[in-house]
């Protein structure tokens, strides 16, 4: 079994009390937890994700890529990418349009199948974009229903995968940007738990996890 780096864009601690996602709260009290700090790259998913995948801050891009360059963390880990929002449609094994046209259920079903197909043999980097996509475009969306779908998905994933990092690169949409703080829940301890998790650090943590698996 290989490790999983699972992004859930726009997942925010600020909704944990309101939406009460049981699995995420269980992980909150039983795994290594932290706060992803992203104060400058939170207006678009591409710079946040590229900063993770290139293992250094990428601040000069603020739109989806036309061509994907060689990605440092993939080169180091040989990881399979699934549904990564650096292109539109998303990049990797699952590729969906970055609009509200794909439901959270449909996206989760495709991503879950793709993860379970490869996780026995290869490290996986996957993302769920639905929360961010839908909250950005549909003001009437029921946030806690989306949380509930995501929570059930997380339960299935953590029941199968041994080593994981579940995170969000930023919090909920806030005007044209996002909340500056994201979620970090993992089986990997961090060198300094009294510090925020930086985006490139996620790439390094995953690479070290892949190396030891």
């Amino acid at each position, binding site marked *: 079994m290989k490790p999983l780096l699972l992004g859930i864009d726009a997942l*925010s*601690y*600020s*909704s*944990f*009390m*309101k939406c009460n996602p049981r699995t995420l709260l269980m992980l*909150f009290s039983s795994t290594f*937890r*932290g*706060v992803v*700090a992203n104060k400058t790259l939170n207006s678009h998913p591409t710079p946040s994700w590229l900063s993770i995948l290139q293992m250094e801050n990428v601040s000069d891009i603020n739109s989806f890529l036309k061509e994907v360059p060689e990605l440092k963390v993939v080169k180091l880990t040989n990881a399979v990418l699934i549904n990564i929002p650096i292109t539109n449609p998303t990049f990797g094994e699952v590729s969906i349009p970055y609009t509200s046209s794909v439901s959270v259920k449909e996206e989760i079903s495709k991503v879950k199948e793709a993860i379970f197909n490869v996780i026995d043999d290869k490290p996986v980097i996957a993302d769920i974009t639905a929360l961010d996509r839908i909250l950005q475009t549909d003001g009437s969306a029921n946030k806690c229903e989306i949380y509930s779908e995501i929570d059930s998905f997380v339960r299935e994933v953590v029941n199968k995968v041994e080593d994981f990092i579940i995170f969000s690169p930023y919090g909920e949409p806030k005007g044209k940007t996002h909340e500056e*703080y994201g*979620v*970090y829940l993992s089986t990997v301890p961090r060198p300094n*738990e*009294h*510090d*925020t998790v930086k985006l490139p650090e996620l790439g390094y943590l995953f690479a070290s996890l892949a190396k030891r698996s």
Partner: protein
Amino acid sequence: MNGEEDPELQKLLEEKAKKLLKEGKKEEERGKVFHLTTKDFDNFISSHKVAVVDFWAEWCAPCLILAPIIEELAQDYPQVGFGKVNSDEEPEIASRYGVMSLPTVIFFKNGEPVDEVIGAVPREEIETRIKALLGE
């Protein structure tokens, strides 16, 4: 003589404008959670009959779970002063009140600490204490 040339009227208008500005500012401040530093902390807690201060830090995940509850309460209890102190940036204030774990919420009455709650607790835990301090 028109109103613009009447110095007495001019003075009255200026005073009225100042009053409106002050009231507007007060209205703007209603329901806000103020980021407090050593510069304004003492003045803040002494200028509110009841004040609630949330001690937090960026790396503290439970603090981020609690934050929206404090913001909600600030909206619902405009007669109470709500503030937050970043314990990493303002260690002096945190140590003055013996804050050892985060989040810690301290309740002040007439500038004196009278109660505290530690951890990401449900809204009711904090609201009950606010109501008691307000005598509701």
